[in-house]
Every structure is written in structure tokens, then in C-alpha cells.
């Protein structure tokens, strides 16, 4: 495997654990606990049972006939939007809550952007009877109100992050600060970011997506691999999951990132184009920063992609040209969301809509492709309504 993590927690030159000494003990404890369960059959069984009976997996791989016709390709949708709570995020929170339970943890914290990870965390905390605090930027609290209400209904405390741009980056800072002050809590990170072992762990729990894609695609088409897999990337967890079992295969891996108003406008979250090497939230990766190494406040219409960094695995895939990136503007994403709604009867999350907009960018003529439909659009209706 060329794209697995090395013993120091690096994908190529990206990754590692750049954390203050204060966080070393809880991160070390987590690392040991994760490696103890990573290949443990009993753990896997509990994880898969919950995914099946509680989350509703496997999610369907749906042949999108009208969309396929329109783009002259064979387009399959991996329906992560049909998961309980409406996005792929719960694959990760189920895995991590089981781990937290095993570690004897009682209190859970999480950061959230779109609120999907917050909801997925609040959900598994309710399921396991654990206390839950979710940090969320003030701006996001406003633009993702339905998810804030869901978290509260599920019994979680939503703590507004008031620093910086008041979005996902700042919510993550606040969660890390809380963890420093309360090292016995368990921090469920929501994407393939953060210090080692988080990127590897979150990718591990999300890899169920591509595991299922392989089986389902084979059953439907007799093909072992699709020609391409497309996924949106905020931090990169749904993409990591959708790519995972294809990393070493002859499959084009395509990343849709958020261009915001446009890559050159100063209101963008296109990390692969605008980003340079640096350290963010505990790992070395690509991030949007000034000449002076100050982290830049990104912009995307979609709260889940409004992040100035990208997970170290994706930085590595991009740097080695294993993955290809397309930057999708706010408008292109909205157009793609309306298009999918009207051709297939599926309203996607704004994040996922970015992946569909790639269809307008390159031709997949006669190819078999899988688009990871990472979440559903209920949470984004107030944004979509402005375009009706």
C-alpha cells in the first residue's frame, strides 16, 4: 500500500502530531487505544452491528439513470445521505464512541461546521448515555439552525465559538482548548484532520464507504473498480472513506473543493490551489495562510467545506498527483444541487453538491463513475430557498 500512514503518523511529508506537551498524554492514550482495537474482531463486530441496525448500512449504490444519460456516463451514487442523521459523519462517530466507551470515557466533545458532525456526535452520545458538548462557530450556528436545534434536542450542549472567523476552524480551536483544560474528556474529531492518530482513525472508520462500493459495484456491473470516484473535501473524511479501498487501484480519484466566490476572489476555501505547506490543528498539511504564516479565514457557502486546511492524506494525494482537484464555486454547487434534485429527486447537502458540479467540468464519456453523496440537503433549505 503506497498511501498508508508511516510509523510516525505521516502520509509522505504530511501529518505528524504538532501538539503542545499538554495534549501529549491524552493523544498518546488515544493512540494506544485505537491501535488496540484497529484490527480487533469483537470491536469490528460491535461497530458493524451498530452501522447495520442503527445507522441503516449498507447504504445503497444507486444507478442515476437520468443523470447518466445527461452526461453520457454510467453514474452511481453512494447514498451516504440515507444514513441515520443524514450524512457520512455518523460512520466515524459510531466508531469513536465505541472506542471512547472502551476507554472508560464519560464526557465527549466535538467541533462542528455544518452541524452534521455535531448531530452525529450528539446522536451517539444519546445512544450511549454520555455527556456531549459541541463547539460550533457563531456564524455557523446561525446558518445551520436546524442542526443546532437537533443537537439540543438530543441533549447536547452547543457552545458558540466566538473567536476568529467564528466558523469551523475556530470551533476546532475551542474544542482543542477545552481538551487541554479537560484532558480526561474524549474528543471526537469530525474529519481526517488533527494530530496523528486522528487522520488515520477517521479514515479507518469511514473506509466502510469504499468497502461497500466495491461489493455493490461488482454485484451490479461485474466490475471490480469504477473508472473514477468523486467526493467533496472539507477536511476530507467522506472522500477518504470513498477513496480508501481504491487508493492503490487504477481508479481516478477526484476531489471537489469549495472555491467560494471564486479562487481568485479572496473569498474561497480552495485549499489545494490557495494553500501552502504548514501546520494546522496539530498536523502538517496544506493550508490557506498569509505570507507571514497566519491562517486565512476561508469562505464557502457550505459550512462543512468552510475550512482553511485539508487532511494530510489528501495533501499527500494532491502533492503526488494521485488525486485530481476541481474547485467549485458557490453558484456552481447550488446549480448542481438543483440539477440533482430535478433529475433524480434527491436534494443533496451543499457540501455534496460540490462533487456533482464536477460533472460540468470534465467529460466522463462512457466511464463508470461513483459520486459520493455525502449528505442530504435538509439542513441547507434556508440557503436553497434563496435560489428558488
Amino acid at each position, binding site marked *: 500500500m503506497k498511501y498508508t500512514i508511516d510509523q*510516525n503518523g505521516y502520509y509522505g511529508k504530511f501529518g*505528524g*502530531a*504538532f*501538539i*503542545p*506537551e*499538554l495534549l*501529549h*498524554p491524552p493523544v498518546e492514550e488515544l493512540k494506544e487505544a485505537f491501535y488496540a482495537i484497529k484490527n480487533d474482531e469483537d470491536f469490528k463486530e460491535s461497530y458493524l452491528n451498530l452501522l447495520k441496525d442503527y445507522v441503516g448500512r449498507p447504504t445503497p449504490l444507486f444507478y442515476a439513470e437520468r443523470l447518466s444519460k445527461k452526461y453520457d456516463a454510467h453514474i452511481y451514487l453512494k447514498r451516504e445521505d440515507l444514513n441515520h442523521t443524514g450524512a457520512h459523519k455518523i460512520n466515524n462517530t459510531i466508531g469513536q464512541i465505541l472506542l471512547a466507551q472502551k476507554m472508560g470515557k464519560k464526557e465527549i466533545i466535538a467541533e462542528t461546521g455544518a452541524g452534521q458532525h455535531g448531530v452525529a456526535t450528539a446522536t451517539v452520545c444519546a445512544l450511549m448515555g454520555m455527556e456531549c458538548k459541541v463547539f460550533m462557530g457563531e456564524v455557523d450556528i446561525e446558518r445551520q439552525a436546524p442542526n443546532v436545534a437537533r443537537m439540543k434536542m438530543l441533549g447536547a450542549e452547543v457552545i458558540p465559538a466566538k*473567536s*476568529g472567523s467564528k466558523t469551523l*476552524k475556530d470551533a476546532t*480551536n475551542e474544542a*482543542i*482548548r477545552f481538551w*487541554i*483544560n479537560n*484532558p480526561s474528556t474524549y474528543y471526537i474529531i469530525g474529519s481526517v484532520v488533527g494530530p496523528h492518530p486522528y487522520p488515520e482513525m477517521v479514515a479507518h472508520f469511514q473506509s466502510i464507504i469504499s468497502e461497500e462500493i466495491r461489493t455493490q459495484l461488482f454485484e451490479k456491473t461485474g466490475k471490480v473498480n469504477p473508472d473514477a470516484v468523486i467526493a467533496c473535501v472539507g477536511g476530507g473524511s467522506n472522500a477518504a472513506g470513498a477513496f480508501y479501498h481504491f487508493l492503490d487501484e487504477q481508479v481516478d480519484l477526484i476531489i471537489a473543493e469549495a472555491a467560494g466566490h471564486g479562487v481568485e476572489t479572496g473569498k474561497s476555501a480552495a485549499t489545494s490551489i490557495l494553500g*501552502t*505547506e*504548514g*501546520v*494546522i*490543528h*496539530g498536523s502538517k498539511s496544506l*493550508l490557506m*495562510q498569509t*505570507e*507571514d*504564516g*497566519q*491562517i486565512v479565514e476561508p469562505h464557502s457557502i457550505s459550512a462543512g467545506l468552510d475550512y482553511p486546511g485539508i487532511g494530510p492524506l489528501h495533501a499527500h494525494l494532491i502533492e503526488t498527483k494521485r488525486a485530481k482537484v476541481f474547485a467549485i464555486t458557490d453558484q456552481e454547487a447550488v446549480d448542481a444541487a438543483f440539477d440533482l434534485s430535478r433529475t433524480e429527486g434527491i436534494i443533496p447537502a451543499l457540501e455534496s453538491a460540490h462533487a456533482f458540479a464536477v460533472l460540468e467540468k470534465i467529460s466522463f464519456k462512457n466511464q463508470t463513475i461513483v459520486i459520493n453523496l455525502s449528505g442530504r440537503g435538509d439542513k441547507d433549505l434556508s440557503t436553497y430557498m434563496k435560489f428558488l
Partner: protein
Amino acid sequence: MNRINQLFQRKPKDVCSIFITAGFPNLNDTVQTVLELERNGVDMVEIGMPFSDPLADGETIQSSSLVALENGMTIDILFRQILAIREQSQIPIVLMGYFNPVFKYGLELFLKKCELSGVDGLIIPDISVEEYELSYKNLFDNYQVPLTFLVTPKTSTARFEKIKNHSSTFIYYVSSASTTGKTGEFSAEQLIDFEQMKSEEIKLPVLMGFGIHDSKTFKTACNYFDGGIIGSAFIRSRKEGKPIVDFVGEIKGIRTETVLR
């Protein structure tokens, strides 16, 4: 010899080190602040290089960092300010900051400029000892700007040994598992931790930081260790406009009277 080592030779006890945010409250305050601290009996300064996302800091240093950045503070401006300090002062200077701005600047160039401008040491809290050994030690070995690592009550013995091996000026002991800026008194458990740390065999001086905000907590640092580092409390006093002479006097437990006009 490094000015930090010289300091501890000259003054092995009750060392008072103060943290300031470079470029705060105004861009060009750095030089005057350092000189005034020295005039008032401060032994060493830590100059914080502001970062947009200071993960280990509480609100006080977060906000001073933001103000400094809004003032236009950069690493190059800081080097010029340090050169200006060095025209008048030989106070030991430690630069403290998060890794990203340094990495972006280029670690090697940064170390070179530290050496040239008269910086005596660095604290980069998010370079863990593991990352240091893996990727950065070789570079640091070429320059006379040693890195000081943080040690907390939870640092394991094995790690502490590693950290000791890589340290050449002093050990920065963090009083508690917290972000910066706490203002309470030390708890009984913390005192037990301090006692434990004090009993460790350490060849280098130990300074305690985090949560040292008044004469009582500073005295505790001096009783258990070789001195204390004051950060957020000083930043707060700057914000309030308290004269430096008064602040230092209070910390050191010296009664000072500001002359009233």
C-alpha cells in the same frame, strides 16, 4: 556563552521572566516594554510572536495576539525590534510562538536571523520532542538558538528524560493542565505535583509558567523552582495601562507607590 546560561550563573534563584506579545498594545511598543521591564528588575523576557490560532492560549493572549496582528506585527519587524533592544540591553530574550509562522518563514532562515539579531532561545510549544527528533534537531544543532521544551505534571519519566537530553538552557515547567491565563490559586494537588517535580534530578534550572499572576503564585514558583514566568497577567496589566514599575513591584512583592500628580 548564551545569555540565559549566564543569567542563571549570576542569579540561580528567584528569576523573574515576563512574557509580552510583540507589537502589543502598539506595534512599536516592543522595544520600550522590554527595556522598561529590564530597568525594573525583570531578569528575562519571552517575546510572543503573534499567531492567528493560538491553540494553547486562553482569551488574554488570544486577544493580544489578534491586536498585534491587526497592528501589522510580523517576524521581520520583530527581528528589527530585537536589534534595537540589543543596542541598549543584554537581557536574555526567548522568542515564543507557534510553529506555523516559523515554518512558513523557513526554519533555517528563522534560526539564522535569531542568531544574528541576538535571540537566546526559542519556545515553540507545538514542536513536540518526537517531531523535534524526527525532523528538526539537525537544523537546531547548527545554530546557537536552543529550543526549550515544556514539561507538565503529566509528562512521563521516559519523555522527561528525552526532553532533558535535548535541553541546554532551562526547563519550562507548566504548572497545570490548562491553557494560559488562569487566575486561581494553586491547589493542594498542584503543590504535590510541584514537590514531585522539585525532587527530580535536573541539571538545568527550572522555571514555572502558566497561571502565575500575582506575588503569591510567583513566590510559589520561586520556592519550588528557580523562578517564574508571568504572561497573561502582564498582558492584562498592559491593557489596563498599569505602569510597568507597579506591575513588577507587585509580582515581586515589593511595595511600590506610584507618585500621584
